[in-house]
């Protein structure tokens, strides 16, 4: 199968959906990104394609009417995307870093997420908000958060956190076709990661978890960038300690594929959740509470949560490396969940 980066997989998903459906538009700061209109149009110069180059080239193919640079007015343009979605377009709006949600959350959760319910089902908001998450980039306290827990908390929103290029492509296409507002979280440290991506029309339905590695002794739920670390840790403990780990990637946090997650724990009797969001009132506590309330009797050991700490993301590299769960700490969490002692 061909290899694509996470970045290119997303770019392709956007491109395919824009070709298929003329009501799909892309908007955000610098998503086209050329100095003057003349600069881009006709002349064929490279567009910036967003600060990470994810939307590069779209403006050349689809033109400025469908690839809209915006001022730094997140409430304004994300709210506009909502208004546009309610009246006939299918916008894909980019919130450059999820950390900026605080300047536009009202539009997202009081308008986008609620219109349908408050209007008694007589509206739909087929909107996707793509946004960048995650630590590891030395981007410091206001550009490194994850916070999908906050959006998952909100009724009316759907939340997707892909972990591989193939999932990103398939899930984004599903998100664009979905009639509800979907927040699509892209980890900045994944953009350059390559992976096999099918060349076909695969759409990965929202709300379906994926078992990234089968196992029967402990369920390791991992989200986003943590999935690859979880797989590495699982392999390590399998080799060193002979522990058979099942790595489950929920992919969609809302709606959550509860049955796949519960089924795995009912099989393995042990649970580790590894997550990069802050710990309080988070998806990690959500998943542990799901298992504790629905499958307590299956648990042989206390579930383990390995998350980012209750702290702002520090800039200093050694501190940031401590902030993010590491392969080694995941491996140790698995051992603890198995009741093994950890040598430090």
């Amino acid at each position, binding site marked *: 199968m061909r290899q694509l980066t996470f970045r290119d997989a997303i770019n392709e998903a956007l491109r395919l959906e824009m070709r298929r459906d003329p009501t799909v538009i892309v908007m955000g700061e610098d998503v086209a990104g050329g100095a003057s209109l003349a600069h881009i149009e006709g002349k064929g110069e490279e567009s910036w394609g967003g600060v990470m180059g994810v939307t590069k080239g779209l403006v050349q193919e689809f033109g400025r009417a469908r690839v809209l640079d915006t*001022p730094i007015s997140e409430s304004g343009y994300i*709210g*506009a995307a909502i208004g546009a979605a*309610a*009246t006939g377009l299918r916008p894909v709006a980019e919130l450059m870093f999820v950390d900026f949600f605080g300047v536009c959350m009202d*539009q997202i959760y009081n308008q986008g997420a609620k219109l*349908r319910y*408050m209007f008694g089902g007589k509206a739909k908001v087929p909107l996707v908000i793509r946004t960048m998450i995650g630590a590891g980039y030395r981007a410091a306290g206001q550009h490194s958060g994850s916070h999908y827990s906050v959006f998952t908390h909100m009724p009316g929103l759907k939340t997707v956190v892909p972990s591989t290029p193939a999932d990103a492509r398939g899930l984004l296409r599903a998100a664009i076709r979905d009639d509800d507002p979907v927040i699509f979280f892209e980890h900045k440290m994944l953009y350059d990661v390559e992976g096999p991506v099918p060349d076909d029309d695969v759409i990965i339905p929202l*709300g379906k978890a994926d078992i990234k590695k089968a196992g029967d002794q402990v369920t390791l739920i991992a989200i986003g960038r943590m999935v690859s670390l979880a797989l590495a840790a699982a392999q390590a403990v399998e080799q060193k300690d002979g522990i058979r780990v099942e790595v489950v990637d929920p992919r969609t946090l809302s709606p959550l594929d509860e049955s796949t997650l519960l089924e795995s724990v009912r099989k393995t009797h042990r649970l580790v959740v590894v997550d990069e969001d802050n710990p309080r009132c988070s998806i990690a506590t959500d998943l542990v509470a799901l298992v504790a309330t629905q499958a307590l009797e299956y648990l042989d050991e206390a579930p383990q949560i390995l998350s980012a700490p209750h702290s702002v993301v520090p800039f200093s590299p050694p501190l940031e490396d401590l902030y993010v769960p590491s392969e080694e700490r995941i491996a140790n969490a698995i051992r603890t969940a198995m009741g093994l002692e950890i040598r430090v």
Partner: protein
Amino acid sequence: MIVDRDKLLWMYEKMRLIRTFEDKVAELFAAGLLPGFVHLYAGEEAIGVGIMAHLNDQDYITSTHRGHGHCIAKGVDVNAMMAELFGKSTGACKGKGGSMHIADISKGMLGANGIVGGGGPLAVGAGLTLKTLGRSGVSVCFFGDGASEQGTMHESMNLASIWKLPVVFVCENNLFAESTPWTYHASVKNIADRAAAYDMPGVLVDGFDVFAIYDVAGQAIDRARQGAGPSLIEARGFRFYGHFQGDPLTYRTAEDEARWHTHDPITVFQTQVLERELLTEEEMKQVDQRIQSQVDDAVTFAQNSPYPGVSDLLTDIYVTYS
């Protein structure tokens, strides 16, 4: 400004319907028959009606917490509105929305809004749809004087301007944001003057005079339809009731009350059409009677309607649940 007889009657009827509806709501509320709280539009009828006289179902509006008047003028069914205020399943939103969230997208009414300034971006979005899909409609954003201090309005006006969208911003300056006078909360002499900050025309108009409003709205809406971009209209008026029904109104002086109650948009209209012999008193009386029974019927309809059922709590959050 020449307004034909049909439109004149339409204007009168809509203003009267809003007034009668609102007075009835005030009465029902005072009698403890309506749940929650309501913000009444009475006194500001000329604004919504003068604007909406130019619009059709393909045009969009966004509204505010004080949305009944906009809904009525945009053609939302009054039975459905009244039932919504009672929280009944026959309501415009099946009872789930209430006063602050009445909407009817089929009529181009994108919803009252509980968030001050919340409608601005939505109106820009509707304008974006119209422009992107090459439709001929216009999108009108109603907002209050208080809302003009909200960042969303700044962002919305700038966006509509740089994208040359068919949007008309209508600031209903009723002199107060809750208990706070606009002379305190706004740093500008006329809110209309802020149009200059977005390179769009701005005009101040008497909010009691439906003809004056009809006039300036016509220009702004034509401009929008012709692809020349957005405009800002400030209509200076007054709300007759409190901020919400039951508001003790300690912030208004007796002089305030007296001064403003002499400015009634319906009286202003009547005086003008009678003077110019455009409509007769008799004609208007007939409208009044028809409207009165329409509103009475709406109350009966609402009271006789069932509440939503248990299962309605968890529907309509998503279109698809997986």
